């Protein structure tokens, strides 16, 4: 079940996994995600479907090591199996021909951005993509993104690749230069917050894809709730993409830290088990 076919490291902390999941490969659309549980004692975590190969019956996941589960996942080998994998979850991205689309991806946010960029391009849009990360080795999927973008601007905090600066600097340059009809932002919550503040200034409709904490992913638990336009929404079934202008990012950022102490404890326990 859910055999891992291929593993590729993008950097020390970011890994691409190709996993056998024929049904999901067939039914998924850009914007969809899955939830997996590595083994009997594992937790359920959501990951975006970065790509799928219907013929081979596989889906591609890109995971960044941030805690116990993602670390264990990134250390899995071809031939290993993931015990539970369910999907596709969430609402698919609304893709149509709008004109020019500005796609902004930060860190591993580029993984979920890839199928969306591809979708917008295939729908006949001009697509300008900004890839942003702290440094060169954290820029992922650049070649794949280039394949589906008319132009790619790379921004790094330290200037080790592309230009030095934040995602917003690159985005503003594009907005000032040409008419942008729609923006999509995926990455860390802070990055999406500031991108959204920028595009609001220019009245550009913007979608952000939220990474709220989840358990079931089917609308059953409410762990993933976020405030959008003053209303409570469940990211897993109502999202994960929402109108960025209406998202309460500050609340999202606080909620992402909801289990920080427990996650830290879990990580320390895990590190003990691997060193023994």
């Amino acid at each position, binding site marked *: 079940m859910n055999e891992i076919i291929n593993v590729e490291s993008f950097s020390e902390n970011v890994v691409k996994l190709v996993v056998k999941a024929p049904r999901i490969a067939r*039914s998924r659309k850009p914007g969809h995600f899955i939830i997996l549980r590595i083994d009997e004692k594992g937790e359920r975590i959501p990951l975006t479907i970065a790509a799928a190969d219907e013929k081979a019956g596989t889906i591609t996941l890109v995971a960044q090591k941030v805690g116990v589960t993602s670390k264990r996942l990134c250390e899995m080998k071809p031939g290993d199996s993931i015990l539970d994998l369910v999907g596709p979850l969430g609402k698919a991205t609304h893709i149509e021909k709008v004109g020019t689309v500005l796609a902004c991806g930060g860190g591993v946010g580029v993984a979920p951005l890839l199928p969306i960029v591809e979708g917008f391009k295939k729908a006949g849009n001009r697509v300008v993509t900004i890839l942003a990360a702290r440094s060169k080795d954290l820029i992922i999927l650049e070649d794949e993104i280039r394949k589906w973008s008319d132009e790619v601007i790379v921004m790094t905090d330290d200037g080790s690749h592309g230009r030095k600066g934040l995602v917003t600097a690159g985005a503003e340059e594009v907005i000032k230069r040409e008419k942008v009809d729609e923006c999509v932002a995926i990455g860390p919550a802070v990055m999406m917050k500031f991108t959204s503040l920028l595009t609001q200034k220019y009245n550009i409709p913007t979608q952000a894809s939220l990474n709220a904490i989840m358990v079931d992913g089917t609308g059953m638990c409410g762990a993933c709730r976020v405030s959008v336009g003053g209303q409570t929404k469940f990211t897993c079934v109502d999202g994960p993409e929402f109108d960025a202008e209406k998202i309460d990012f500050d609340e999202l950022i606080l909620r992402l830290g909801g289990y920080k102490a427990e996650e830290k404890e879990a990580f320390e326990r895990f590190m003990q088990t691997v060193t023994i």
Partner: protein
Amino acid sequence: KDRGLIERVKMPEMNAMKRVCYQDREVNLGLDVQSAVREAQRCMDCVNPTCMEGCPVSINIPKFIKNIERGEFLEAAKTLKETSALPAVCGRVCPQEKQCEANCFYTLKLKKTPVAIGYLERFAADYERESGQASIPETAPKNGIKVAAIGSGPASLAFAGDMIKLGYDVTVFEALHEIGGVLKYGIPEFRLPNKIVDVELDNLEKMGVRFERNFIVGRTASFDDLKAEGYQAFFVASGAGLPRFMNIPGENYNGILSSNEYLTRVNLMNAADDSFDTPVLKGKNVAVVGGGNTAMDSVRTAKRLGADRAMIIYRRSREEMPARVEEIHHAEEEGIEFINLTNPIEYFSDENGRVKSMKVQRMELAEADASGRRRPVVIEGSEYEIPVDVVVVAIGVSPNPLVPSELPQLKVSRWGTIDVDSETMQSSMPELFAGGDIVRGGATVILAMGDGRRAAAGMHQYLSEQN
């Protein structure tokens, strides 16, 4: 001998101070043979057994109890299984005091405590299971017709049991990684041990029912996909999994969660056990909002996770609490604080966004309205704050919208429940039947099972006409 003079048996239970130290030890220990037989002797074998009218699936109560009295415990279990798919579960979780036992001759006519029908049901079912002589029911020759059940809660399990006996090829699809629905992710071990549910699942599997976990019908595959794979009819029992919140200020602070999230973390994900990766918040001052079974399960879980204060905040009084009486009683024994006639109106947080207190207001009950319920009304100026670090909101659930949202042509009520014919459980789409909480809103295990059985009969009729 005068049956009416025998005192109702007391259920032996684990000492309250001891049991709150364990998340997974069952509170009720079960009757021994001697006390079960003695309790059975109380039953008058009424000519007109009113108790049966109180049971949603009309179990032949006097018959199974007489079997116990005669010492024929396996026969008693057989009688139960004629009508109920999961007697070991219902004996534990049915609200007997509102159903069979409320209608017992003792309650109605003698004004005495009723025959302990629930305890006896549990006894017979447990006896059969532990004897290792549980019979696998016979199944008709395979008819090769594929049918699907969606969701794996009690409604689907009852449906699957009946359909497999009729010779159908039955697959149960479940979104989660475990089979059992609320029986697994909701109701805690201390009330319903998983191994009891698992025995029933094993039996269904042995009879030939297939279970597909991690499969969301409508997403992983569409109804049309499944039809193309040969499924001729569907039983939708996707439950009432959508938690309600109160929409009051501060409700999205960290530390405030739905009972579904709280119980799922502990029951489905084993979060209370450090060797499992899923975290759970262990609060010192835990408030649970609500007065139903879900609220009781949550507050008693909080106590077991080490809370100093585990509180129920309920806007009506104890008499109106919808929870099973036994659970309220057990909660009281365990030192749960009941802050009744009180309602939260706002939450406050610390600088990290973690809840630190809740503002509540006192309520009083007005005269009964047309529906006969006494409505809680606010006492002006009665607000005060309660310090809390975890709040569990257990004020009810709405029907799971997943299936209806995939089938625009399916008729649903304005509350989102699926409309069905109450006899056949057939929906507005002829090949689609539905039952359990997705039809009733939040109801009970036994009602869900009754629906599953009626749907099986309805679908069998329908398919017999089609094929």
